[in-house]
């Protein structure tokens, strides 16, 4: 027995065990980042939510321009923020598509209908006739006048400006009501006719107040018609159910691998099992650190990479056995086995990485998630097989704990 090596081995086992417990069990409820498995972001299919792809459509009165799409995005962002969900995603895809993702929302369908509603915003005169809608409003920004008083500047589209000129001319001294979803948000008095479509509302107590009003006005209307190209909603119960089932299936699959490895490869199998646990922990850590979004196919990708991590060990052990059969000592057998196995592991994993990269490039949503988890899994598996397994095997062989080569599968 070599006690220093045994001690090292025991130390490593304890450390990994502690990390494993910290990863999944809430031992320190006060520490925010523990257990770190909880930090991994869950995709919409696991926590419920909505994924929708909107496309801007040409209409006679407002053809699609890149400015209008950008504006529409900003407006949707405002509308979506009203739901108060964590980390909503509003993204442009190509020239005229907008992708929106909201997680953990109660009525996803309602959210989608709200997103594509065109005109909430109306301008009414005192007698209640609607004279303008948000569609004719180009922008609303906050600012200050010469004396430093906060104000909101409105600018109308050319057609809106023309109408606005007539309306202001006919309503000098009277208020114009600005309604958002039938609620009056502003009722400024017309002081003079405004012919150029550029109006100012003032005074406001602060620039911040003016800013808020400007946002309300801006988010009032979509400048362009949006159509739903694709919509996927997942209810929270189904999401939780999927997650639960996947975790159970994952544990069962992992357990089967662990048992098989020990039965077939004996002591090295046990070492591989330990390396596999290290592998799983490392991958979870990386997922948490890189903010990888875990989707249902992503979990499948992770587990598939688990199979490939085992593969690297299998290739190494088969080589190791051959070296032992050829009469090598344990120590030189380990090194020779690793050396000869490395080329095979490298080449085979690179080809799989190529497939994963292509999948990432062409895929969308959950498929991208699958490609990411698979790729990270492959890279980490190469690392753990070559470093962790090798180090541990040397440690076990060097400690003289087990000297019978039969226990190494020979």
């Amino acid at each position, binding site marked *: 027995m070599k006690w220093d090596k045994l001690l090292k081995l025991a130390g490593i086992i304890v450390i990994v065990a502690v990390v494993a417990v910290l990863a999944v069990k809430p031992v320190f409820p006060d520490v925010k980042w523990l257990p770190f498995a909880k930090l991994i972001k869950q995709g919409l299919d696991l926590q419920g939510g909505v994924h929708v792809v909107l496309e801007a459509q040409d209409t006679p009165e407002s053809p699609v321009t890149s400015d209008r799409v950008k504006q529409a995005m900003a407006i949707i962002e405002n509308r979506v923020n009203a739901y108060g969900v964590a980390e909503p995603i509003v993204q442009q895809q190509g020239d005229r598509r907008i992708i929106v993702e909201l997680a953990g929302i109660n009525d996803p369908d309602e959210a989608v209908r709200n997103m594509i509603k065109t005109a909430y915003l109306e301008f009414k005169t005192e007698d209640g006739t609607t004279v303008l809608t948000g569609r004719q409003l180009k922008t609303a920004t906050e600012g200050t006048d010469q004396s430093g008083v906060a104000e909101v500047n409105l600018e109308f589209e050319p057609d809106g400006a023309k109408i606005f000129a007539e309306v202001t001319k006919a309503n000098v001294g009277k208020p114009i009501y600005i309604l958002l979803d039938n609620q009056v948000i502003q009722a400024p008095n017309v002081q003079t006719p405004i012919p150029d479509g550029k109006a100012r509302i003032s005074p406001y107590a602060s620039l911040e107040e003016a800013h808020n009003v400007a946002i309300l006005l801006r988010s009032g209307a979509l400048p362009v018609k949006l159509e739903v190209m694709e919509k996927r909603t997942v209810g929270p119960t189904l999401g939780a159910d999927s997650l639960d089932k996947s975790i159970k299936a994952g544990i069962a699959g992992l357990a*089967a691998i662990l048992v098989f490895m020990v039965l*077939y490869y004996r002591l090295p199998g046990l070492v591989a099992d330990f390396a596999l646990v290290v592998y799983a922990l490392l991958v979870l850590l990386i997922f948490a650190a890189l903010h990888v979004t875990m989707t249902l196919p992503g979990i499948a990708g992770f587990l*598939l990479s688990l199979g490939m991590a085992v593969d690297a060990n299998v290739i190494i052990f*088969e080589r190791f056995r051959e070296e032992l059969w050829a009469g090598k000592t344990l120590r030189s057998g380990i090194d020779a086995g690793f050396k000869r196995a490395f080329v095979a592991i490298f080449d*085979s994993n690179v080809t799989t*990485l190529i497939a994963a990269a292509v999948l990432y490039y062409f*895929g969308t949503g959950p*498929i991208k998630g699958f*490609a990411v988890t698979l790729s990270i899994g492959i890279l980490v598996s190469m690392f753990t097989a070559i470093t962790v397994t090798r180090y541990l095997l040397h440690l076990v062989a060097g400690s003289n704990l087990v000297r019978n080569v039969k226990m190494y599968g020979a």
Partner: protein
Amino acid sequence: MLRDKKPFHFIKLRKIWYVISILVIVPGIISLFSQGLNLGIDFRGGSLLDLKFNQPTAVEQVRGVLADFGLEGASIQRSGETDFIVRTKELAEDENLAVLQALDQKLGGVAVQRNERVGPVIGQELIRKALLALGVASVLMVVYIAWRFEFKQGIAAIIAILHDVLVILGIFSIFQIEVDSTFVAAVLTIIGYSINDTIVIFDRIRENMLYRKKGEALEDVINNSLWQTMARSINTGLTVIFVLVAFFLMGGATIHNMVLALLIGVSSGAYSSIFNASPIWYDFKKMEERGRLKGAKA
């Protein structure tokens, strides 16, 4: 030990392996041409409602409500007493809302588990992207293998992959199992997996060719390499299958078809890596040799 006994000669028996592959693939190809694939809304476009009613409900009741909206042709799939998956033509948002409200009011309350709507454009894009991805992945792999091994091995590996893709497509066509976007991911993963399997064997052949004894026939080198890697091929296939079976039996219904495609693919990939890729490469080498002999004679 298998490696020492070598119960049979892989290369000498290769015609048998080819016949087995053809017997598995041909019915699938016939099915693909006659009835095609059961394309889900991801490809065709349409709407999907995954519903859970508050009380036991019959298919006829659901169809009755749908008929009010002219949707009596919808596909209605019942699993359990209260769970339904309804597939219809594409429904606009207000139409969708009206249908859900009607179902909720007339059939005593319903929770929407999943609601998907895919426009026809998206479906076409998916098909285009899937084919493009397949093509790009194949080319890149041939390039890599040609660089690390030799070009003919790259082609042999791609033929083995084509075999696996045809097996998956064929089985999904024969049994008319629904194909969605996760299916595309499964097929591409199998490509990665199958080629991974093949490469480990090619690596062994590459190494054995270096230590090839004088007068040792190529077919024997390949045969030895295949037997030397046999334990690895089986064990790796088994460990992946463990995980997939666990997912197939216990995982959620949403990825059921994806896992099924992976299971079929991993099995086919293990077969094609051992029984097709190397024997095909051997045939290529023989053709090359014959071509050289002919050239020498003339």
